């Protein structure tokens, strides 16, 4: 059986923004003044967040997810690899998913090849290696022209994977990263190399590049319900075009969940953290209010064709997660699923059944949510939601995707 894989994703938000943050500041990204960092109140913050991920491992999640963002209050992980290194020593079973490192931001992608290879060895082969182009804020952070991002990303990924699989030293000609000596020590422990995941937001260009190489596609757009199903269909189609067969494990999606004993309790306990996350952390990213830095003419990563399509799309489609004004509006979007174990199970099951995506990367901690609440939600999920989802999805996937077989490891689907 191949049940859905359930991962715990931590964004590691800065939890001490002032009450009037939304009034006074235009963004939680790039320009958010770092004098807001409170040295006293942040003592122990990384320990708290890391321990939540270690707890996820103890609860039997399939893995822990980290990501890279710079100069922001949304996620305190400019270097996810440092946190991944800590996790290699404190966790035992789960995959360590770094989603992702951002090669276009770096002068030398070999540094990423080396650090990922170290993490794979340090974790005894538990690394999932993510690579991403970086969004608008990251372009501002590291001064990388958006039109060059994709080209740099794919040259870097190909070079890194080749550095893991081919014997060195060899020379790489460029054009972005010419390199005389490519000879990575250590080599990764997994053969031929750790699973490669690449996030995208439904652009056909990214799907093509991912499918062609047999990597995993991670939908990062927080567009749920119909959007994920469409993306999965599109990606399956693109894979087929490249002579490959889609299985649910070729795709991942980001979800946000809070579970409590009852629906009412779940809403009451999670509201503060969720609104902090939406109003503060998403300001500058997925909100119209404030300075929107994620996409636009200032960070023009979309092709002219894609931008034209965007301009032609109806206005209403531009509404972003952080624009939600009421709890009801939020519930309609289905991006953040809050409720009793039964409610959450039902909604996630509907999602799995509909989208047939096999990797759910779930955010449990929101903004300034207290440690005890995040842990309680994770525990309830692991004990009262996950077992049913695994059982039902295993049966469903076996029926719909017979090529998965009983013995066939997921990796062989590559």
């Amino acid at each position: 059986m191949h049940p859905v894989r359930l991962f715990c994703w931590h964004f590691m938000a800065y939890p001490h923004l002032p009450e009037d943050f939304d009034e006074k500041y235009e963004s939680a990204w790039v320009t958010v003044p770092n004098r807001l960092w409170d040295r006293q109140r942040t003592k122990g913050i990384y320990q708290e967040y890391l321990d939540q991920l270690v707890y996820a491992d103890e609860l039997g999640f399939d893995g822990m997810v980290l990501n890279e963002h710079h100069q922001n209050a949304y996620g305190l992980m400019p270097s996810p690899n440092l946190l991944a290194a800590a996790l290699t020593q404190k966790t035992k079973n789960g995959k360590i998913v770094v989603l992702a490192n951002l090669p276009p931001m770096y002068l030398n992608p070999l540094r990423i090849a080396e650090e990922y290879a170290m993490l794979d060895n340090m974790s005894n082969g538990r690394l999932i290696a993510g690579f991403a182009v970086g969004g608008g804020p990251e372009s501002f952070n590291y001064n990388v022209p958006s039109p060059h991002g994709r080209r740099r990303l794919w040259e870097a990924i190909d070079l890194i994977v080749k550095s893991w699989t081919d014997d060195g030293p060899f020379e790489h000609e460029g054009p972005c990263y010419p390199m005389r000596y490519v000879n990575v020590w250590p080599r990764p422990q997994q053969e031929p190399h750790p699973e490669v995941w690449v996030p995208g937001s439904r652009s056909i260009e990214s799907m093509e590049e991912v499918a062609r190489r047999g990597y995993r596609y991670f939908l990062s757009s927080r567009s749920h319900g119909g959007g994920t199903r469409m993306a999965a269909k599109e990606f399956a189609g693109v894979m087929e075009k490249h002579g490959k067969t889609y299985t649910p494990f070729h795709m991942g999606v980001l979800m946000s969940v809070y579970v409590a004993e009852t629906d009412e309790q779940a809403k009451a306990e999670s509201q503060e953290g969720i609104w902090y996350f939406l109003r503060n952390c998403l300001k500058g990213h997925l909100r119209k209010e404030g300075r929107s830095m994620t996409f636009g003419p200032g960070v023009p990563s979309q092709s002219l064709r894609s931008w034209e399509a965007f301009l032609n799309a109806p206005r209403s489609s531009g509404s972003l997660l952080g624009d939600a004004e009421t709890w009801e509006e939020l519930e309609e979007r289905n991006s953040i699923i809050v409720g009793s174990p039964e409610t959450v199970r039902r909604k996630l099951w509907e999602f799995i059944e509909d989208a047939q995506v096999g990797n759910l990367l779930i955010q449990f901690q929101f903004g300034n949510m207290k440690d005890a609440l995040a842990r309680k939600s994770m525990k309830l999920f692991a004990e009262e939601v996950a077992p049913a989802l695994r059982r039902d999805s295993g049966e469903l996937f076996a029926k719909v995707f017979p090529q998965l077989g009983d013995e066939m490891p997921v990796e062989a689907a590559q």
Partner: protein
Amino acid sequence: MSMRDLTVAGRTVQLYEAGEGTPVLYLHGIADMHGAAAGPFPFHEALATDVKLIAPAHPGCVGSDEDNSLESIEDLMFHTLEVMDALGLEKAAIVGNCIGGWVAAEIAARNPERVGKLVLIGAPGLFVSGSPTGDLFMAVQPLNGGIADLRAMLFADGEGELAQDLFPDQHRDKEQGMLRYQIFRCIARFGFKPPYFYHRKLRDRLYRFKGPALVLHGADDAFVPPDYAAAYGEGFSDASVETIAGAGHAVILERPDEVAGKIAAFLKE
């Protein structure tokens, strides 16, 4: 006047041509023809009364093909030299506005024999310590749904009719939204990364151009500070500098007759 296409290195370059007489190559900027509107502004029409104005659109702007290999001002300069080759312009007067002014200055320093007279309007391109250019890329990203910051960076009166008309908060129509995206995608290729809109060595190379140069600058330019004009004036061997009071970076739109008049007089001298 006419628009036509030229083929340069296998790529289409859209060209605006107007007027009769001595050819003058016009290199456009952002708040300009090809950048903020597909057609000419009154400034261009005024300029074309005495000369033959030839204005190619930079790669990716309006109907010109994108060039994904474009990643430095040197690339844009070589592209422009190729356009001159294709037009048979062995030597011509060059008028450059904004980014186009920087390209014109690069050509004058590198290939002074290709440049007759030189006019720079609100040109970045030099390193002027303590006077960084404004961050256009941040300014064009909507703040609370609007782009007042961009208008303020480009116009002396950012909330005036002219600014609002060309750079409205909402994409007034698809064409305007597309043009803006196109010019920003073009200039992001070289101007988004350090050192942004200058080339540190250009200043020491300007002396190589011995011809006459006219350097015009809006006194209230909030994208390229006016001391860039002074720096260009010092760098060239034969330059006159004029600062236009009450005008911003978009001085050609804000003072079309005045700027066109000064240029026409300079080209006639």
